[in-house]
């Protein structure tokens, strides 16, 4: 029941919002709907914890033996919690942004939420594909309608990239369907034993879709442009949640389904991930636009998760799980700050800002904590995740180069300190200029949103066990499928 509610609430509200003309009302309804989703999610994790409430399975398309099967297992819970937590924060922290046709804007946002939640809960490949695209379409419209100057070209590039990836994935899923004797169920997929050649083909088909979504170097070229051109509220969804769709896809639909090929191709993809991390970090250092800086830093951080998957071990996989959540809330914090700056000063150029700390102390304190989380300082949540991943990569029995990867990865952490702290320094410290002279501190809504994130960052940094214990089972299952420890 919980999964169905989680889909229906945003879906129905989203559709209804198209009919509501008053912009303020539309915004309030959207916000309320996301809060209800969050409440349902929390209830699902506490009160309705039994399997009957967390799973929903009905026949859907008889001719294909496809089932409408949603389930909230540990990994789904983690990501659905991230999604339902991020959405109210996104709407709340961008409360003062104004949009033309605000009702449609929020309607599409909620439709995207329904799609994203569906992706994380689907246990049937056809359903998974459905939601995968359902999440994409509203985002396409959001970016193209409310984005920056070059939005149309950039967004169509984004769409065509991801659509191509999706179609390859579809063929891969069709092949799996026939191999599984006419079943789309994930449970059947992970029982398959395929020949090496079949696994190889299916692996390639599936990995493209996920690589584009995350994005993995060299499939990343759409990402900085799209993040830059999208309205910031949408960029938050793209980076905090949608990028996780790719990682989630790897963990749910790739590694346990074609384990041998994942193992076999591990080194190639791990190398790509390392190259991408280093490359993205260096590019991030050179960025002057705040949005592009965060975008590139996101590629670097996601790269580490990919690396940990292709050089797997128990600690590494658990690290990815918790880091998916951490990266979501950390980058959301960064975007909220970027949005505040853009709304106040009308520019995102680092070179045109400076000295904000004198004028906006609260913002600065909160930002610095988020920035420290971004560079994985101990006591912040990212430290836990990244430490576990490095630990796992170093000790992985699946690859001979674990140590090399880990060292290369650690270099990117240093680089992330370079670009993040340089950004903090240039934007918040130093002398003020005529633009930042009249700066005022953030409003209460942004304070609250950032404060919630910061509390989350520190709490998870000190006591990560609740999150980690959610995913032990699935992590173990992935490793068992790959015959690794």
């Amino acid at each position, binding site marked *: 029941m919980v999964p169905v509610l989680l889909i229906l609430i945003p879906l129905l509200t989203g559709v209804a919002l198209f009919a509501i003309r008053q912009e303020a009302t539309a915004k309030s309804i959207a916000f309320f709907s996301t809060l209800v989703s969050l409440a349902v999610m929390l209830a699902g994790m506490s009160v309705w914890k039994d399997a009957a409430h967390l799973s929903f399975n009905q026949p859907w398309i008889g001719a294909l033996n496809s089932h409408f099967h949603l389930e909230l297992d540990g990994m789904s819970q983690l990501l659905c919690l991230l999604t339902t937590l991020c959405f109210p924060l996104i709407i709340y922290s961008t409360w003062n942004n104004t949009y033309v046709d605000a009702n449609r804007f929020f309607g599409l946002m909620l439709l995207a939420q329904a799609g994203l939640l569906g992706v994380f809960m689907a246990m049937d490949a056809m359903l998974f594909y*459905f939601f995968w695209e359902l999440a994409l*379409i509203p985002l396409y419209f959001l970016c193209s*309608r409310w984005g920056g100057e070059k*939005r*149309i070209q950039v967004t169509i590039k984004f769409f065509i990239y991801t659509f191509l990836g999706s*179609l390859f994935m*579809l*063929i891969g899923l069709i092949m799996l369907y026939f191999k599984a004797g006419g079943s789309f169920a994930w449970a059947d997929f992970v029982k398959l034993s395929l020949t090496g050649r079949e696994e190889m083909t299916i692996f390639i088909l599936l990995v493209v879709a996920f690589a584009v979504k995350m994005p993995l170097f060299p499939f990343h070229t759409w990402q900085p442009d799209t993040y830059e051109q999208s309205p910031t509220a949408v960029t938050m969804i793209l980076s905090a949640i949608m990028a996780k769709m790719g990682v989630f896809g790897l963990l749910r639909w790739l590694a346990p389904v074609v384990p041998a090929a994942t193992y076999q191709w591990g080194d190639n993809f791990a190398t790509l991930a390392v190259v991408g991390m280093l490359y993205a970090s260096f590019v991030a250092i050179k960025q002057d636009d705040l949005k592009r800086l965060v975008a590139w830093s996101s590629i670097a951080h996601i790269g580490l998760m990919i690396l940990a998957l292709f050089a797997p071990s128990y600690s590494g996989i658990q690290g990815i799980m918790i880091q998916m959540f951490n990266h979501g809330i950390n980058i959301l914090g960064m975007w909220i700050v970027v949005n505040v700056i853009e709304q106040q000063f009308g520019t995102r150029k680092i070179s045109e800002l400076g000295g904000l700390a004198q004028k906006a102390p609260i913002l600065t304190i909160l930002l610095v904590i988020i920035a420290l989380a971004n560079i994985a300082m101990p006591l912040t949540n990212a430290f836990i995740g990244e430490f576990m991943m490095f630990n796992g990569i170093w000790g992985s029995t699946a690859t001979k180069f674990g140590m090399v990867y880990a060292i290369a990865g650690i270099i990117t952490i240093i680089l992330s300190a370079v670009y993040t702290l340089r950004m903090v320094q240039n934007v918040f410290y130093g002398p003020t200029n005529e633009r930042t002279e009249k700066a005022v501190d953030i409003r209460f809504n942004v304070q609250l949103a950032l404060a919630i994130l910061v509390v989350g960052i520190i709490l998870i940094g000190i006591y990560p066990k609740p999150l980690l214990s959610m995913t032990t089972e699935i992590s173990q299952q992935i490793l068992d499928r790959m015959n690794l420890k």
Partner: protein
Amino acid sequence: MNAIILSALLGVVLMFTGIFTTNKSTIRTVATAGLLLLLLANIAEMNGWKLFEVNTRNMLVFNKFGLLFNTIAFSATLLYFLLSARDILKVGINGAEYFALIFFILCGVSIVSSFNTLLLLFLGIEIISIPLYILTGSDKRNLKSNEAALKYFLMGSFSTGIMLMGIVLMYGAKGTFSIDAALQASNPGREVWYTSGLLLLFISMAFKVSAAPFHFWTPDVYDGAPTVFTSFMATIVKAGVFIAFVRLFEYSFSGSGYDWKLIVSIVTAATLFIGNITAIFQQSVKRMLAYSSIAQAGFMLFALFSYNTLSREGIILYTLGYSLATIGIFAVLVKMKDYTFEGFNGLARTQPVLAATTTIFLLSLAGIPMTIGFFAKYFMLASAVKSGSHLWLVFFAILCAVVSVYYYFRVIQSMYFKDGAGATEEISPAFRWILLLMAGLIILFGIFPNMILNYLYF
């Protein structure tokens, strides 16, 4: 049988209506009511209720596949009438005749969906084609329309000749027109006749469904014909001929199937490639749709390429999805003042309902999930994967589907993200409601394709 006899009769009724009245709304009402009757009669036959008992000596076979297709074709035509009947009457002074010709075409469609002998296939195809030549040239004072009609007629008769030649060769090889008998009869020594006959049939049918490299007439004819008739030609007629094509090759000659796979796969790939690549460069939405219809034919050819239950279900879904979406887009196009992409600029501001429904139609044509277009493509691709050989074609089709996103989304971009007048003719509320109904159907079947497919089995 209900459909064949009734549609022919209704055609005659419409012609007489034209004699007794020139009142447009009367003609429209008679045509729409007639079509509704036809649809109901066909549904009655699906439920085993036959109005006419005719001994066809096994020349026609009415199975669920054909009857279901008839229902789809008639329902699509009904929606087409509801949307565009006024525009049909605007084409020229002979309003009733246009409707009569459409009913004759439907008669041909119901023959080709149930033929069991090559003679009736030929008859059906001709009954479809001849009224189409007239409809193409119905805008008498428009030179482009005349040119299109002449071109279509010349090329069409040529392909008819090829078809006849093919039928003759096959008759020579097997000594019978009947498909059942031909499958059993073996005539050693004349295999070459049979094969070349089949090849000629293939070529002429490929011409009718505008498969490359026999597609050259399509853009000119679709562009030249009055837009309302292009809509009918590109959807129901094309779907009908496809059903004939599939019946002919999938069931009747499946025994000789394997040799055909290479030829069919090359034709499919060429059709996909030419349709999609050329559509990108069009400036007029109407011409873009002409090329897109070639591209969609490429996907439908998958039903010939891989013969299994999936492709059988797929072609039904494909014809339905493609017809609904294309009729909708053409109906909107007819209302536009400017047929270029720029003409659609800002339509979302001036006509939000038209823009929203057109978006759904385009998403369906592009094959995005939640629309029936997705399942149509899904079944086609899955049937090809299942058949196992020539997997390259599947990947080629995917690449083409991605290309198609570019030009379909160009219309969406114009409507939603660019500013402009988006000038249309006056839109009646009924028109909007029908469009919304069609969009609703596309999404409904896109989530529950079972609602259609169950009819094939139960």
